[in-house]
């Protein structure tokens, strides 16, 4: 059974689906928090993901050239996170804040414009061509292969995938702690629940907004770096390609519900990968060219059937 079905299914469809799902999940966390607390769909989120990955690579390249260090992407990602949070602050202050009290459509248009501004900046600074992020072919992790092989269910997981999944778990646990056990986290949930009530309760909404950008930014950079690790390269359309599935994940999980975003991301990632599995007969259920349509279809169905999402988030 494992030989004929399980091996191929788990290693080439299921696990890649989980990995993709983790990336979507992390990106969707930022989107759902922004949607819930700032009340708008931030179209520039994908570009921040991508820029975070580019900056990480640049840090790796510079430290490699100057000091001969071979920094691991996850280490180089840390200064990148700080930088991108700063970028978020600047963008918010100059381009989003003026529309805090205006109709939502204005800030959505502004974020659409920022999407292109940021992408163009990256294209100017780093050029439009693909850049190799990590060289070489990813070999399966030996320990896991041995362990599962001895159980007759061999699982091949390249280190990079293992790191991505483990990293996502760590981030989600930290996020959960933040939201349930810290004062600022509870305030974030409160503002997401009812910004008007938060205002008259005396909660400083601008502080909460800043916290949202910090958490969202950190998750976005993590998602971007993980994506770069996965496909082992950088390109300027990376962010936009992820945008639709991330929105779909946030909507699927319920706007404003971070755990929902995580679940939504995993579901969509798995759905995308599993859609090209030959469930019936020999050819893929869905032609791989249409993979990106899967996320969109799930989203449309959710919007029509149950707009509040799985975890009963906000409906506008």
């Amino acid at each position: 059974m494992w030989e004929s079905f399980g091996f191929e299914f788990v290693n080439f469809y299921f696990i890649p689906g989980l990995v993709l799902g983790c990336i979507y999940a992390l990106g969707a966390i930022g989107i759902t928090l922004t949607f819930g607390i700032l009340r708008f769909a931030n179209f520039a989120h994908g570009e921040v993901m991508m820029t975070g990955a580019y900056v990480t690579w640049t840090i790796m390249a510079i430290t490699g050239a100057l000091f001969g260090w071979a920094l691991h992407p996850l280490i180089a990602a840390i200064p990148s996170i700080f930088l991108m949070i700063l970028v978020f602050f600047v963008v918010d202050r100059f381009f989003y804040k003026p529309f805090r009290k205006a109709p939502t459509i204005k800030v959505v248009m502004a974020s659409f414009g920022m999407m292109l501004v940021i992408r163009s900046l990256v294209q100017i600074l780093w050029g439009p061509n693909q850049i190799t992020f990590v060289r070489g072919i990813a070999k399966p992790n030996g320990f896991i292969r041995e362990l599962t092989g001895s159980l007759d269910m061999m699982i091949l997981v390249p280190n990079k995938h293992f790191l991505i999944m483990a990293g996502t778990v760590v981030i989600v646990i930290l996020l959960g702690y933040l939201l349930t056990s810290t004062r600022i986290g509870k305030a974030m949930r409160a503002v997401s629940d009812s910004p008007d009530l938060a205002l008259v309760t005396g909660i400083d909404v601008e502080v909460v907004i800043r916290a949202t950008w910090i958490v969202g930014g950190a998750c976005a950079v993590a998602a971007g770096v993980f994506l770069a690790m996965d496909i082992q390269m950088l390109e300027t359309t990376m962010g936009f390609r992820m945008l639709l599935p991330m929105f779909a994940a946030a909507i699927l999980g319920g706007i404003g519900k971070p755990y929902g975003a995580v679940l939504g991301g995993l579901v969509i990632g798995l759905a995308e990968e599993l859609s090209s599995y030959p469930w019936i007969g020999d050819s893929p259920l869905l032609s791989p060219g249409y993979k990106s349509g899967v996320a969109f279809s799930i989203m449309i169905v959710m919007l029509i059937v149950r707009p509040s999402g799985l975890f009963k988030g906000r409906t506008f």
Partner: protein
Amino acid sequence: MDQLIGYFLYFCSLLAVGGIYSLIALGLNVQWGFAGLFNVGIAGFVSIGAYTYALLTTDTSPLHYGGLGLPLAVGIVAAMIASGLISAIIGVICIRLRSDYLAIATIGIAEIIKLVLKNNSEITNGPRGINKIPRLWENFTEERFYNDWPMSWFASAETWQSIFSSLPRWWWQPCFALSIIIAVYVVYKLLEKLRLSPWGRMMTAIRENEPAAHAAGKNVTGRRIEAFILGSMIMGLAGAVLAMHLRLIEPTNTFDPSKLTFLVWVMLIAGGSGNNRGAILGSFLIWVIWSASEIVINVGIDVIGDFTNIHVGILSTRAGYLRMLLIGLLLQYILQKYPLGILPESRPTASSKT
């Protein structure tokens, strides 16, 4: 003299492309200005129009379906119908969504349309696209047109050939540009009539105060779908004209949403959303800025290349993105400082408080 002709032809192409963008902007204005629909999937509807026109009017080809060689007029009308049909289906499903969600949904739809065009290679020749699309006026010089009716009624093939060889090679360009301007004018006039008609006034009422309109028993959703379809049909028309202008279309780069969708939105907002005249003005204005910036940047690159050691090649590839960056910043500036655009809307009815 040749240089003058060069400038003249450049001017014609500015008019032509500006006109195409004007058409798209007018279509978008029906959706946004009349009905308040935030459509970010413009590129999708334009591409449907373009492909429909192309498939119907190009010559038979082993690479793709169609190639029926139908008259251009049929192709244009079919383009509008195709766009309208697809938008009708989408509209019925999505029209009730709030603006953020509608934006996301329309982006998704444009993506799906692109995927369909890219993947169905037997029909559309996939990523390689369709070429040799007949261009109005220029098509008269092609053999398959003057050999056939109606041109063959007026003169024989040889007569046509000698007429065309006596004209300057570029004779069709001003004719083409003029035709587009006329089309823009006609659409503009029709839309203005529509705006002042009972339907138009109802749309204004819905946009100003939707709950009141609902309470008065108006079928808000139905009207919105109508606006959506009408706007898409105009975009389909623009798509057909775009296909004519380019003569070669393919699914990914021709209809690049960052240029097509985004630029048109900047045009509409700059010109004055809700405003047909503003749509046209904004289109030409932004298009001129876009084209002119290309020249300015190229000149700048040459200057920099002369004074420094930076390789001109690298500069020029990256400079293209500089234009997009500046337009993006321009949009932010306009959104904050001139939210009503250059030509604020003039309301036909009495003023109401916002």
